[in-house]
């Protein structure tokens, strides 16, 4: 009888040990799951990146309220050389798209200057106008500037960032 009780008690201890082991596994699995869910979603800062790109391009083409006519002008055709803006895409030009349009105040339908660069396919993707991790995102902003003759212009800048796989 005493031997029988001893075995019964031992079985109970084994069951309790297994139970504890299972609980520890569940808790550990839960913690791993929480960390995976939280850190599995990277910070998506592409919208901020697009806005920063617009600010940098705006700084490049307009300074102290005046258009940089060495770079762009509505009066004579110039090749907009983006390298003069000192922006470094670090070999990731395919991940970006930008478009600069300048409108005279008298004609807001037809831009007097238009130039784009980067990956042209991104413009169409951005036009879908839906925010998703799997679609390029961007921004379009406008501001007002003058040329040296104090002619008035509205400058519209579109910037699109893809970085679907590796936005950090």
């Amino acid at each position, binding site marked *: 009888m005493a031997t029988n009780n001893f075995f019964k008690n031992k079985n109970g201890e084994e069951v309790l040990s297994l139970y504890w082991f299972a609980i520890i596994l569940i808790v550990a699995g839960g913690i791993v799951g929480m960390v995976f869910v939280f850190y599995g979603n990277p*910070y998506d800062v592409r919208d901020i990146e697009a806005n920063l790109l617009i600010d940098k391009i705006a700084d490049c083409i307009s300074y102290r309220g005046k258009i940089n006519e060495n770079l762009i002008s509505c009066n004579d055709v110039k090749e907009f050389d983006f390298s003069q803006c000192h922006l470094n895409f670090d070999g990731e030009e395919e991940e970006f798209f930008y478009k600069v349009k300048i409108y005279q105040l008298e004609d807001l339908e037809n831009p007097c200057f238009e130039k784009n660069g980067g990956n042209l396919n991104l413009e169409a993707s951005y036009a879908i106008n839906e925010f998703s991790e799997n679609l390029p995102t961007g921004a379009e902003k406008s*501001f007002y500037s003058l040329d040296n003759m104090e002619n008035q212009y509205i400058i519209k800048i579109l910037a699109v960032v893809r970085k679907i796989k590796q936005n950090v």
Partner: protein
Amino acid sequence: MYRNILNKKAAIGETITWTVATIIIIGALIIFLVLSSLLAKVKLINFREVKSDVEKESPVLTMKTSISHDIADERNKTQIDNILEEWNNE
């Protein structure tokens, strides 16, 4: 026989305690999992859905526009501001 029944009753009580403890542990884990997945969604930063107009405007571009207005003695200011407001909120 009587002793055996008593022993079983004690085991039932203990089993209920552990079952409730297990449910609480798993419930807490599920709550934390849901909370962490909700926190993970906050990482998507989307200015297009920001409600405040202040955050939609770029201070750099607003400053440039303002400087140009000053240089041009606020010529056509209302017209230009209306165009910019319309275009920037499209």
